[in-house]
């Protein structure tokens, strides 16, 4: 099975060299394979967000090796990190983060725009993705004309635009009611089962985590448990 994410000895410190130096992540080790639906859970302050930023190539670890789809992310410069985010990672945020004044289909096209995909191809693929999340009829609506659930579905379509290695979802149902939350989760399950997508779900909800194949639990910057139905390789530190 192909390894998509490989973390070895990941340490993240803030305020390095200052009296208030702070170590958030204390040497994490784990791997995520292709097609796994993993959730990362933990109370606030456990280092979830910091880990998510590192997985999402928004930030570099202070120490350790992070291989994403065979690329050593820690060594990349700013521009290369942008390219990695663009091609390898599909973000889904809690508050959707659609670009305002830009309609649904243009939002879906954005990652392809930055990837330099041609106009026609962009439009063709975006239409397909909207169809997949059942939002074709809202293609020309601006975000402020859409409900939360609709926005999140657009955001998922956008996350899939460049066929990334992983979908990184940060509390994707956090701003939704239970029913729409379930609908969004159903899309993730569908993507996982039907398209064999690798999905990393960051959440503080035990219920949501229970729906996934594998649960990595963080506390105080350490992995305290890693249980999985499918993965089978429980690495407990």
């Amino acid at each position, binding site marked *: 099975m192909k390894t998509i994410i490989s973390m070895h000895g990941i340490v993240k410190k803030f305020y390095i060299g200052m009296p208030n130096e702070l170590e958030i992540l204390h040497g994490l080790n784990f791997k995520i394979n292709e097609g796994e639906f993993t959730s990362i859970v933990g109370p606030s302050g456990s280092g979830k967000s910091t880990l998510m*930023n590192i997985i*999402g190539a*928004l*930030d570099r670890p202070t120490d350790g090796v992070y291989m994403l789809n065979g690329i050593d992310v820690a060594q990349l410069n*700013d*521009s290369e990190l*942008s*390219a990695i*985010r*663009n*091609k390898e990672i599909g*973000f889904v*945020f809690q508050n959707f*983060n*659609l*670009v*305002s*004044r*830009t309609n649904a289909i243009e939002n879906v096209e*954005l*990652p392809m*725009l*930055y*990837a*330099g995909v*041609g*106009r026609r191809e962009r439009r063709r693929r975006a239409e397909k993705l909207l169809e997949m999340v059942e939002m074709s009829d809202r293609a020309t609506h601006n975000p402020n004309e859409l409900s939360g659930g609709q926005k999140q579905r657009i955001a998922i379509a*956008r996350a899939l635009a*460049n066929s990334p290695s992983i979908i990184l979802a940060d509390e994707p149902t956090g701003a939704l009611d239970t029913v729409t939350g379930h609908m969004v989760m159903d899309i993730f399950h569908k993507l996982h089962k039907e398209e064999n997508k690798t999905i990393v779900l960051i959440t503080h909800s035990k219920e949501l985590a229970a729906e996934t194949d594998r649960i990595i639990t963080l506390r105080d910057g350490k992995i305290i448990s890693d249980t999985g139905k499918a993965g089978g390789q429980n690495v407990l530190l």
Partner: protein
Amino acid sequence: MFFFENIRLAIASLRSNKMRAILTMLGIIIGISAVITITTLGNSLKKTLSNSFNKLGGQTFDVEYRFKQEENQDEDGVYQYRPMEEDDYITDDMLKELEAKYPGRYLVSRSNDLGAGTVKNKKGDKLNVSISGVTEGYIKSASIYKMLSGRTVNNDDDNGRKHSIIVSDIFVKQYFGHEDANAVGSDISLDITGLCDTDFTIVGVFKFPKILEKYMQSTSNFMDRETPVMIPYETAKKLNRSNESNSRDWYITFMLNDMSMDRDQALRDIERFFNEKYRNNKYWGIEIYDPQNELGIVNKVLNIVTLVISIIAAISLLVGGIGVMNIMLVSITERTREIGVRKALGAKKRHIKTQFIVEAIILCLIGGIIGVLLGIFNGYLIGYIARYALGQMPEYQDFVALSIQPSLNAILLSLGFSMLIGVFFGSYPAGKAAKLDPIEALRYE
């Protein structure tokens, strides 16, 4: 492709904040419109002056006689003047040689003055005229004269020293009683004061130029008004035998027959031609007087005035630019989150930077375009006011050709400059946006 995407984005962003965009543009609009107004006026004034100049014979230039001072100095540097003698004048042979050398290129216009005279009409009224002798080219090159009927005096009249005369429409009215009279072909008896009384045949009628009213004896009595009449140059010279110096002209006017010909070249050719002729004359030489030189000085002054006012207007552009920078900084703060999202989706620094610089450029360019349109409008408005004012002064209407012409250079330069303001004042905010940390930006509320 990315470029058009940025333009579309920029316009969408500006449209979402119309009022703010307009207020921001105001500085640019005022600055650019001031520059365009001033340059339009300057340009129009130049154009009007040069048109009017051409109408007044600006396409002509004079060959004047000049005493060779530097060659006639004694040891103390005092020059010994010697008046012109018969041999010092430009001869008909010289003019013929010039014509042979450059066939059809120059129209020679000469005139001499026979002074005042009177003509009696059938009722016995004495009509006052001022008489000059002119060559065929005279009416043609002095464009304040327009022929109404008949022809002007020509070379035939000149060579044959014929008694042909051309008169003004006012003279026709004075002489025949109404201006529609068929004057051409009629004989009149001209009494040239102090010389002779002889018959002339009217060969043509020209329109009395209003501008001459200022120089002619003008009384409230229509019949007493003095009008100009013209007879052939050589005829005048012959009639004026008794007073030789008066029949001599102090300069000869040349006009280019072919307007498309390089004027400077034409001037240089004439100068070289006559300098050659006068090389062996110890006392007298020639000098070219080009009326367009005078226009050049006016143009220089106008250019300086335009430049100075443009610089003052540029200060308003600077203020406008600072306004643009300010609003871009506000816009970037407001859109911090959007920038974070874009970065998360894979936008590189240069993508973000380009996006905001393009937005600043579009902001300034729209301001610039509005400014240019406003400036052109102002120019035309002032032009119409000037035209109205000119309408109140009929005597100038004949030769002042008011022309409103926005300066294309200034328009292009202004648009270019406003874009430059966008680049300059957009760079700092755009750079700031590009440098934002995506994590911080995404967390920004």
